[in-house]
Structure formats: C-alpha cells, structure tokens
C-alpha cells in the first residue's frame, strides 16, 4: 500500500498516509483533485468497488471530512480517501458518473450534513426527512434533545417502586 501511495503522490497532492493493516490504508486528498484521483484509482489501479461515502463533522476545526472508501477485488485491499472541506460553505464535486450508486450517498450527505453536490441527480429531493425545516440533523451543533423537546410532546412518566408496587398487587390487605 505504501508503494501505491508513493506512485500516486507523483501525480496527486496526497498527504497523511495512515495504514493500520497490511491491506488497508487511508490518505488525504484535496477536494479539487478528488474526481480525477478516483477516476485514476478506478481505471488504472483496479479500485473498482465504491464501498461507501460518509462524512465526519470536525466542529472545532470548522471542517467536514468526507470519506470515500474503495475496494480492490484483485489485491483485496481497501483504500480510504479523506477530503477536508470548509464547514461554512461545504461544496463537493459530484462523482456519480463514476459509480451510479454514489448519488444516493450524496443525497444522504446533503440531507444529513448540508453538503452540496452540484449536478448530482436528485440531490435536493428529500430522502428520509420529508418536509424537514430545521438545520441538517447530523451536524454536531444541532442539538437533537432540544429539538425533540420543542417539537414532540412527552408522556408523563409514572414511576413506581417495584417492591412497594408488587406488595400492593400481591397483598392488598396488608
């Protein structure tokens, strides 16, 4: 995997190589080079399977970390690519032309994190949150508890001590 990183580094700006297993590695790429890097990996290095696209919210750093996981069936290796984008105006290049299923992930990321993928088909359609009006719920500055208490009514809890309650049920005369 280190050899692959060295080969790719000649063409792309790759930093921060991490490998915790022999068949798995993570590298950090820039957002402008991402689509060309993915195309290169898919067509030349055999990473033909897109495992998933996900996102991590680094609230303190003001960044979103978009993670692309790829798998190579020939060498049975996994490659993860991190891309850091600013949290204020999160826009990523769409890569649905490489893998058709990527548009579902991109739709989900737009709904849950508010990341924009211009050109991705149906990316603005609601997927799970129909009629959602609040901020994107998976961002870390979104307080689910406060939102939930404001929106949905609670049922009053009736707490009974089990010992006392069973005594009253079983021996009502005492």
């Amino acid at each position, binding site marked *: 995997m280190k050899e692959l990183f060295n080969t790719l580094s000649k063409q792309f700006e790759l930093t921060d190589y991490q490998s915790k297993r022999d068949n798995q590695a993570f590298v950090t790429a820039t957002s402008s080079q991402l689509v060309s890097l993915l195309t290169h990996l898919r067509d030349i290095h055999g990473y033909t399977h897109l495992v998933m696209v996900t996102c991590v919210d680094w609230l303190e750093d003001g960044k979103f970390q978009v993670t692309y996981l790829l798998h190579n069936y020939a060498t049975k290796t996994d490659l993860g690519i991190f891309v850091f984008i600013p949290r204020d105006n999160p826009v990523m290049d769409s890569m649905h032309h490489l893998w058709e299923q990527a548009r579902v992930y991109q739709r989900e990321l737009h709904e849950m994190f508010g990341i924009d993928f211009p050109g991705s088909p149906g990316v603005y359609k*609601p997927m*799970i*949150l*129909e*009629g*959602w*009006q*609040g901020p994107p*719920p998976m961002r870390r500055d*979104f307080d*689910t*508890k406060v*939102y*939930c208490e404001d*929106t*949905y*009514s*609670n*049922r009053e*809890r009736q707490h009974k001590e089990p010992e006392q309650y069973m005594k009253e049920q079983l021996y009502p005369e005492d």
Partner: protein
Amino acid sequence: MKDDDIKNDSNLTVEVSQTPIADYPDWRKDDKSLTNAGLSEEEQDWFCDARPQPAKKSWQIMENFFNWARSNSLWILAFGTGCGAIELRPLVTARYDISRLGMQPRPTPRQASVFMIGGYVSIKTLKRIVRSYEQMQGPKFVVAVCSCAINGGMYWDSYNTVKRIDEYIPVDVYVTGCMPRPEAVLAGFSKLKELIKAGKAEGQNLYAEKFDWYKENQKSVIKDWNMPDYNW
C-alpha cells in the same frame, strides 16, 4: 413537440373552472367541510371534503351481537412500521397460530380492521400511518406494540421520531416491551377482543369526535402536508 409548445397549445390543455373559497355561496360559509388546503386546486376536486362521523349505535342487544362478531373476525393490516412487525410473523406460524382467534394479516387497509403499530414511528412513516388508518373501513382498532410507540422508548431524544402515537391516531391496546414476545402480542390481541366484546374499543369514534385535535397534532409534525385532510 417541445414542452413549451404543449403548454401553449390550447387544444391540449383542459380548462378547469375554479371557485375561490371567498366566493362560495352563503350556504357553504358555515359548513365545516374540510378545506384540503395541502392539495393543489385541481386535486382538491378529486377528494371528498366530508368529515368522519361517529358510528351510530343500534339497540344494545344488537350491538352486543355485532361486537361478538367483530371480535371474532379481526383482520390485521400487514404494515410493518417498525421492528415490532417482526413479531407478527411468528404469530401466523403453527406454533402460535393466530387463525384460531379469527385473525389473519391482510394486504390492504380496505380489508383490515386492526392496525398494529409495531414500534418507533418516524415522521415519514407517520404520514403513511395516518393515510392507511383513515383508509381502513370501520370498525377499526389500533394496537400499539413496543415501548417506542408508548413513550418514545430508545428514541426518546430522536429528531425524527414521534414519542406518543396516541396523539396522532387513537390507540385501543398497548403492549409493552422492547421487543414483546409473540405471547405478549397475542395477549394484547386477546385483551383487544375482550374490549371489543365489552363495547369499550371506541377509538374510531374518538377519532371522529376529536378530529380537529388529531389533525392539528398531525399537521404540527408533518410539515409537508400534501394529502387530503381525510383520506377515506
């Protein structure tokens, strides 16, 4: 032809005469028919604007007979709204054999009389639940299974899950547990049968009487209300 040509071609468009609500005749101003405001003006003509009415009771002796008949032919709407729907499947198998109680799952709301809410209800599901419940023909009953439907359960602080289902549709019987065993669900259905025989399972009439309250609760969480106000 391009799309613009089709729009501009007068031969292809059908003119629909619209009456604005302000111009209704006087006899309509006082009536309480539903506005169906979530639909477009064209679609409003397709749906009825009548409210649900509470069922009229007949003589008590006839009502007892009807209730006996109703309680022995409960057909469940096979709409799995959460993980509790998994527990419905073993009930149909030979081990629990729900048919001996006169119950069976049915594929459509029109044929069903029991709605089993199986667990957590997200907003997207609640929309479908309301629609399915209103399409069921009366008499209809609701059994809420799992703690999520009672007080939120493990989704007590979730952003997209309602915590009490009984604010949105009337519930006759609750079955606690996470998950309840099939025996517990079966006991819940037996309890429902007792309630029906005693004439106490009146959720449908409650829904008709407190219709405005239920609609207000439903619309407070379903922000994109794009269906008729009462889908029967």
